[in-house]
């Protein structure tokens, strides 16, 4: 094994490979920053280039670019309220609220440092126990996925600081939007109004860009907010205070990284779901949940770590069984085959130096993320100094370009504008938009897993709780859902008993 690692070191620390890593890091940072261009797209664009590379640099390019893209998606999210990639959407509002309070550097610094730590955590898990974990992930069936999705949806209602009723209504709106189109278990077109484009459903990215960014632009036009105040004298100090955060929030960090890795391993759920779930969890377990949504860094620590660790987690089933953990590894598996690194247990036995080289690339990518991310943030911060009447039209242009690019169709631009308007009206009336987006992310998965489970069990509902893992997840879901009611009853009971004269 040591010998194999020595060979792996030689494979990675080769000038050509290092150049590839550096270039794809810059590429990933750029793609992640542009709203509408996702980490998945970065991977797809890299594939034709990797045709002409040896195996290790080809995989290194994908690993590095995606890790960078997931981090740099935080930057426009924090500065402009436009999540660069869907993985940043969960805490975009939080980070933007921090920027408004003049704490952009803390938000971005936390995003950067804890992304890197989360990524390293996921990598460490992958290095030590990939085959065993992939084996467990294979035991998950639709029943288990169904409960995981319900858990995620339950979290949606508690994120942010809007009323639970309004958050629930927003979530239901998202679930309704998720029903549109042909991609449902019956393969039957729903709510398509006879428009071919709507048969494909509402794509998440145009919707997300519209709901976050276009609504913000509309708000600016209507209210003419004064320019954001940023503590510009602190340039380059994004690392300041990070040690303090690390000491203050060790549990959110570990929790986020662990949950992210687990979500990543599950086929079909990736970095975006990891971020949503861990953000909700951070609020649930926080000592000061009332601060969430007002510019509080705790959720960013946890969710920022989670989305990067999910990235590494997704590679575990991909390498061991050729089953993609997310849409990025779905592409990467094709590249692995192409390079003769056929996924499977044999990959760990026959050519261990290649697999160790991939591990080392993960470590390296997450380490160089710190200096490169620092430089990117330093450059991007200048955006805030631009007068808003110049900045806002430019952002609108970016939104349009991004929503066009995702599917190369004007229909995407239309969706962005419609959802921007809708989100503006919702937010002006106190409805949060984040639950609606989560509804779209998870709605399809929930329906699919429910229907599949019911077909398999011949309509027997008890199948959802009789499998051991499913039963455990079901109990956890109900505890989380009914905890507030239980706690309320408990308090009521005790206050009655202890203070009978209060009435």
């Amino acid at each position, binding site marked *: 094994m040591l010998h194999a690692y020595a060979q792996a070191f030689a494979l990675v620390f080769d000038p050509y490979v290092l150049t590839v890593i550096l270039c794809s890091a810059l590429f990933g940072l750029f793609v992640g920053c542009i709203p509408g261009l996702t980490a998945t*797209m970065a*991977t*797809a664009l890299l594939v034709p280039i990797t045709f002409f590379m040896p195996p290790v640099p080809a995989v290194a390019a994908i690993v590095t670019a995606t890790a960078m893209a997931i981090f740099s998606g935080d930057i426009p999210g924090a500065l402009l309220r436009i999540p660069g990639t869907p993985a940043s959407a969960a805490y975009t509002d939080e980070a933007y609220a921090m920027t408004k309070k003049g704490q952009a550097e803390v938000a971005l610094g936390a995003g950067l440092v804890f992304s890197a730590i989360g990524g390293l955590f996921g990598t460490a898990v992958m290095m030590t126990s990939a085959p065993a974990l992939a084996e467990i992930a294979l035991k998950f069936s639709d029943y288990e996925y169904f409960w995981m999705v319900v858990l995620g949806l339950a979290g949606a209602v508690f994120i942010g600081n809007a009323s639970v009723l309004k958050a629930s209504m927003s979530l239901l709106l998202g679930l309704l939007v998720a029903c549109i189109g042909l991609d449902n278990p019956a393969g039957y077109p729903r709510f398509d109004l006879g428009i071919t484009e709507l048969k494909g459903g509402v794509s998440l990215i145009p919707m997300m860009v519209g709901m976050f960014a276009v609504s913000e632009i509309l708000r600016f036009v209507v209210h003419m907010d004064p320019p954001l105040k940023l503590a510009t004298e602190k340039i380059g100090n994004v690392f300041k205070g990070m040690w303090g955060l690390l000491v203050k929030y060790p549990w959110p960090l570990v929790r986020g990284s662990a949950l992210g890795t687990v979500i990543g391993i599950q086929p079909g759920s990736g970095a975006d779901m990891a971020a949503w779930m861990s953000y909700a969890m951070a609020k649930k377990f926080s000592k000061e949940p009332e601060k969430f949504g007002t510019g509080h860094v705790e959720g960013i620590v946890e969710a920022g770590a989670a989305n990067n660790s999910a990235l590494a987690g997704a590679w575990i089933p991909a390498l061991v*069984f050729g089953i*993609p953990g997310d849409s990025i590894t779905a592409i990467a598996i094709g590249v692995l085959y192409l390079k003769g690194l056929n*996924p*499977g247990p044999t990959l760990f036995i026959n050519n261990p130096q290649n697999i160790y080289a991939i591990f080392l690339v993960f470590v390296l990518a997450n380490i160089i993320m710190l200096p490169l991310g620092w430089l990117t943030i330093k450059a991007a911060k200048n955006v805030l100094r631009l007068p808003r009447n110049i900045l806002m039209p430019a952002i609108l242009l970016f939104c349009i370009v991004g929503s066009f690019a995702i599917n190369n169709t004007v229909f995407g631009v239309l969706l962005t504008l419609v959802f921007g308007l809708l989100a503006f009206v919702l937010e002006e009336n106190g409805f949060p938009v984040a639950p609606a987006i989560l509804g779209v992310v998870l709605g399809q998965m929930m329906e699919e897993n429910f*229907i599949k489970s019911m077909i398999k069990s011949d309509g027997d509902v008890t199948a959802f709780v009789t499998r051991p893992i499913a039963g455990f997840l079901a109990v956890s879901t109900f505890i989380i859902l009914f905890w507030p009611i239980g706690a309320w009853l408990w308090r009521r009971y005790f206050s009655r008993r202890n203070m009978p004269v209060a009435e």
Partner: protein
Amino acid sequence: MRTLLAALLVAAATTAQAQYPNRPVQLIVPWGAGGGTDATARIIGALMEKELKQPFNVVNRTGGSGVVGHDAIARAPADGYTLGLITVEITMMHHVGLTPLTYKDYTPIGLMNADPSGISVRADSPYKSVKDLLAAVKANPGKFKASGTGQGGIWHLAIAGLLKDQGIDPGALPWVPSQGAAPGLQDLVSGGVEVVPCSIPEARAMIDAGKVRALAIMDDNPPALYPNLPTLKKELGTNWKIAAWRVIAAPKGLPADVQKTLAIALKKVYDSKDYKEFMAKQGYGTVWAGPEDTAKFMAASDANLGGALKAVGLAK
């Protein structure tokens, strides 16, 4: 960004063409980045670029089980600057009433690949041959479930058609819709379903990992990857076969000279070492047909699959 730029160029440029192609060509894929169709399109695009000295930009137009992308290809101007990689679904969707589009809405350039369906079970399944499996399905209608693609998708049709062919009610093996072969196989291994009919390259990693056992292939010959895999003909004596295929096509009404230029270049791409090696490494089957033969091939596929869809009660 490159694709975007190309799209803008395509939209802006005039139709005047001195020597085709004199500007970038857009290659639309109706399926998502990362799948087998996408990978095939990207290698074809890269090699066509070398042949015709113009950029070939692969553009994914996903959604609606392929309807959206196929529609986009058919509606594009027939000037040779928008091509598409159309798939077997174009000869299925109109039978089910999802779209009025048929294979006749395209100008075929060439057939590039076909992957026959296999039949796989879990490695610890008691059924060692397709005969045993089908006997068990017949004896216990509704007990076993199958998965591997969406409702009414190609692999669904493959197994339903086979059951019909063997005189078994297709409803005896209920279909569990999935987003594709990979989630279907995962479900097979986790014990959710008992049968996955999908192409052999899709099941390859799981077969090699010792998690899944392939029982048979629905083709005339065993696949190159597993030469010992029996054909249905050998196992059951039936001629039932079905394959997913991929054709490079342009919108209907493509000028004949442009079609000829493209067909010649595409044939060179098909014959190239790069293409053959790429497809062999992925485990994908390669088949070539020129424009006329491709048209005939698609017509035959349309008739076969339409008949099968009706027989199993999926057609409208």
